[in-house]
């Protein structure tokens, strides 16, 4: 079991290197292009100027060295400067990461709270009203593009009904209170959560359905356990592994979806930072934000792997 965890961690490290190298190569391409642009403007550039320029941009060293320098600087929090705002990228990211984590984790918890009970119910009573409700919800969730959902939600609930604010995290010119934050959080979280509900519902239903035919469920019933205890203590408990897998697989999806949601609701998170940086061609910010988001997703996945150990007695008692 310990071996398994070490293997997972090593794999995460490999992923991390692959990811950072990928992003580094991309930003390198951009820098190369930038130099080409400068060159095409000044055709009569002397060799010395060209070399000086190469050196200044750090392009005269071999790629592995440059990659390593970039990576070590990055790990130490030196992510370069924003070309648009002329402030350290690390500072910008520090400001933006909190709101994104708040949005995505609340949405995740909401999605789990909706889809696990509903999934269990629809597996327990197939073709009942619960089952129909959950399959309808799953279909809506998988067929509704997030941005359309956002637009309709803003139009109906924020503009027409006026129940919720249309954008931002806090009301302007007001003290930042928790109530205000929650008020702003409702619509984005509902939409981000709904996007997850589909796959989670389907997975919960089929996992529980599979378990319900096992012998230990019959045993549990025949020894006179209450249905609730059978369902929660035995069926759900054994179906948890595929459910947790689905949760951890949907983290990247959730984070991707939140880019659109943040942008529409002007939520001051990493996603809207990436979009505005793309519009400003602020490459240092784009690259750093992409790496940081991927690292957070990766860490979440590792945390999920540890949760496996907690919930699956077969795994933790192996050694």
């Amino acid at each position, binding site marked *: 079991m310990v071996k398994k965890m070490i293997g997972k961690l090593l*794999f995460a490290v*490999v*992923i991390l290197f*692959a*990811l950072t190298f*990928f*992003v580094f190569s*991309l*930003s390198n*391409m*951009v820098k190369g292009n930038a130099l080409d642009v400068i060159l095409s403007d000044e055709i009569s550039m002397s060799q010395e100027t060209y070399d000086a320029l190469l050196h200044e941009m750090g392009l005269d060293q071999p790629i592995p060295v440059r990659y390593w320098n970039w990576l070590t600087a990055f790990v130490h929090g030196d992510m370069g400067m924003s070309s648009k705002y002329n402030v350290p990228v690390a500072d910008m990211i520090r400001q933006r990461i909190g709101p994104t984590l708040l949005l995505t984790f609340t949405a995740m918890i909401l999605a789990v709270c909706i889809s696990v009970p509903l999934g269990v119910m629809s597996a327990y009573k197939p073709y009942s009203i619960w*089952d129909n409700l959950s*399959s309808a919800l799953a*279909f809506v969730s*998988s*067929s*509704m*593009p*997030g*941005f*359309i959902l956002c*637009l*309709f939600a*803003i*139009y109906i609930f924020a*503009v027409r009904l006026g129940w919720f604010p*249309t*954008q931002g995290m806090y009301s302007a010119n007001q003290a930042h209170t928790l109530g205000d934050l929650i008020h702003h959080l409702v619509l984005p979280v509902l939409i981000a959560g709904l996007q997850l509900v589909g796959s989670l519902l389907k997975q919960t239903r089929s996992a529980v359905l599979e378990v319900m035919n096992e012998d230990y469920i019959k045993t549990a019933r025949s020894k006179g356990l209450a249905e609730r205890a059978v369902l929660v203590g035995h069926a759900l408990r054994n179906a948890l592994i595929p459910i947790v897998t689905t949760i951890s*697989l949907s*983290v*990247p*999806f959730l*984070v*991707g*979806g939140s*880019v*659109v949601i943040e*942008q*529409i609701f002007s939520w001051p998170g990493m996603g809207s930072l*990436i*979009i505005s940086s*793309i*519009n400003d061609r602020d490459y240092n910010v*784009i*690259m750093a934000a*992409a790496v940081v*988001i*991927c690292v957070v*997703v*990766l860490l979440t*996945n590792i945390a999920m792997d540890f949760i496996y150990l907690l919930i699956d007695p077969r795994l933790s008692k192996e050694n």
Partner: protein
Amino acid sequence: MEVKNKNGFLAFLKKFVHHKAALAALIIFLLEVLCILILPAVLDLDPNTSDYLAMAKGPSAAHILGTDEIGRDLFARILYGGRVSMFVGVCATLMSVSIGVPLGVIAGYYQGKVGAIIMRICEMFMAFPSMILTLVLITVLEPSAGTVIFAIGIMGWTRHCKLLYGSVMAARSKEYVEAAIAIGTSSPKIIAKYILPNAISPLWVSLAFSISNAIISESSLSFLGAGIKAPQASWGNIIYAAQKLDVLTSKPWMWVPAALVLLVTVVSINLVGEGIRDAFDPKMRR
């Protein structure tokens, strides 16, 4: 279930037709494709010319769905945008299939080290938020229909790979495959003759969902301003106008029709997908 087999295909059709919603969705979808292909030429529509007398005007006789901020006819733009969105959806799916299927077949057939490496790469791709990497990739490559297809295709192959890996592995352990190996049939021949016909059917089911996902990705990217760029129309970049609050609230003709068309398309493709799935395997229903 083998589509090559004519009787099998007929049986499949019979079952598919039974799924009323899927049949209706297929008809709606085909009608839509027909409109997108034929109407622009028949009605002589122009998506790019501005009508300076009618800028950001609501529906009228001259422009049945109104015009956008710079006076372009929105009906024409939705039709032309449909061409782009469908094209991107199909091409991105073709690309992800042509990467994912061979890799999945190789991994499932040979297993061992090769299979482990392929599946690890697959997991690696799945651990990344593909939306973020797609955004970064397209920005660096400059947004266009080609780069959007490339980025969506290269991030989308994992589902096909995983699917084929599972079904090929199941087919690989069948006795007739063992027999074919025993009499010395070459591996490519075994794969083509015995494995693929028995392992490919899950792919048909996932094709529809893959196309609708690609269409959603493309329109989301274009909506964010990082996909198909104006003047070329796409459903996503038509709806982009709704990012301005006054368009969202008081000029609904500028985004609601495009949003509805996108929605109808995605829903009907998904329903067709569900129909195909149920026809292949009634046990898998829901």
